[in-house]
């Protein structure tokens, strides 16, 4: 599938009707989502025939993009039941099979390395500090192959250091810097649209992780 086709298909998905500020619900735009998954598949072969988990899937954008690129089993996880309903109906609209689990990522107890790839657009932690790193910690435990994630560019050094030193990632690489358009969803947004500089990361989990982690 061509990048343009992928972008246009996921551009047709329904997004949050009433986004919840406490969960930092911002839709993942089709531009970013399509590039994330396209890169994961075409540069690294982390999608086709794989098991892919979408952490904090919201309306399912990243997970459904993975399914469109041939992921064999896709699981979307989110704490918000309204999002999961939209995500599930998005899957039906695209005639794609995707599983969903209603849960808090931070309490997830999956076996280590049970999925191949984790994709996520985590809450950036502006409302609850560090939540994006909590997601990353769990992602690096359950993924065997790679974790793709978006983090604010201003946190680049912190993300790299934490992933390598504390979470024992084998590698942590910024693939590109993107502009994340945050439309005026919430009342406290003064400007019509703000764009934030965001890094697209690829992390490789440590193969022989020490047990105590």
């Amino acid at each position: 599938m061509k990048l343009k086709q992928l972008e246009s298909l996921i551009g047709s998905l329904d997004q949050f009707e009433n986004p919840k500020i406490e969960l930092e619900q911002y839709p993942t735009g089709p531009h970013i989502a399509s590039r994330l998954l396209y890169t994961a598949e075409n540069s690294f072969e982390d999608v086709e025939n794989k098991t892919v988990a979408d952490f904090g899937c919201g309306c399912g954008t990243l997970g459904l993009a993975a399914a469109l690129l041939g992921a064999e089993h896709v699981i979307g996880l989110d704490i918000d039941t309204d999002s999961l309903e939209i995500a599930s109906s998005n899957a039906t609209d695209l005639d794609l099979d995707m599983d969903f689990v209603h849960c808090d990522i931070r309490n997830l107890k999956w076996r280590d390395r049970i999925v191949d790839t984790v994709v996520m657009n985590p809450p950036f932690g502006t409302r609850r500090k560090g939540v994006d790193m909590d997601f990353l910690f769990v992602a690096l435990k359950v993924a065997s192959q790679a974790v793709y994630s978006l983090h604010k560019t201003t946190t680049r050094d912190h993300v790299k250091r934490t992933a390598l030193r504390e979470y024992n990632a084998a590698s942590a690489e910024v693939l590109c810097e993107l502009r994340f358009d945050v439309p005026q969803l919430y009342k406290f947004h003064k400007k019509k649209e703000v764009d934030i500089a965001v890094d697209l990361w690829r992390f490789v989990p440590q193969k022989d992780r020490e047990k105590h982690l």
Partner: protein
Amino acid sequence: MRLLTHNMLSSNIKGVTNGFPLLIEVEKVVEKQVDFNEDFLRNMFAKIEWKALVEASRTMGYTELPENSESSMLNSDEFLRKFHHALLELHLEEGALVCPETGRKFPVNKGIPNMLLHEDEV
């Protein structure tokens, strides 16, 4: 929810040490056909907890999986087809997942298990 997802989930209640596998209470099962993908099955075979898959598929009314498995079985097309069906085509649509240690039920509605914990379970 496919049984592959079930094979990943465990009870994450605080203090629970044997939260896997979750028992299944079936209200409604649906079957959805998926293209057969041999490479995927071979790759998943090493990661799957076989006994949990066998029990889960039996609870869902599918009794074709052998009690024990070994990697040599992957050479049999018949075995792969059964594995494929149990792992990817059987969906728990309505029912519950039950913590094997505490009996706490996690409801499954419209195929989505609700694994959210109450405050005192975290």
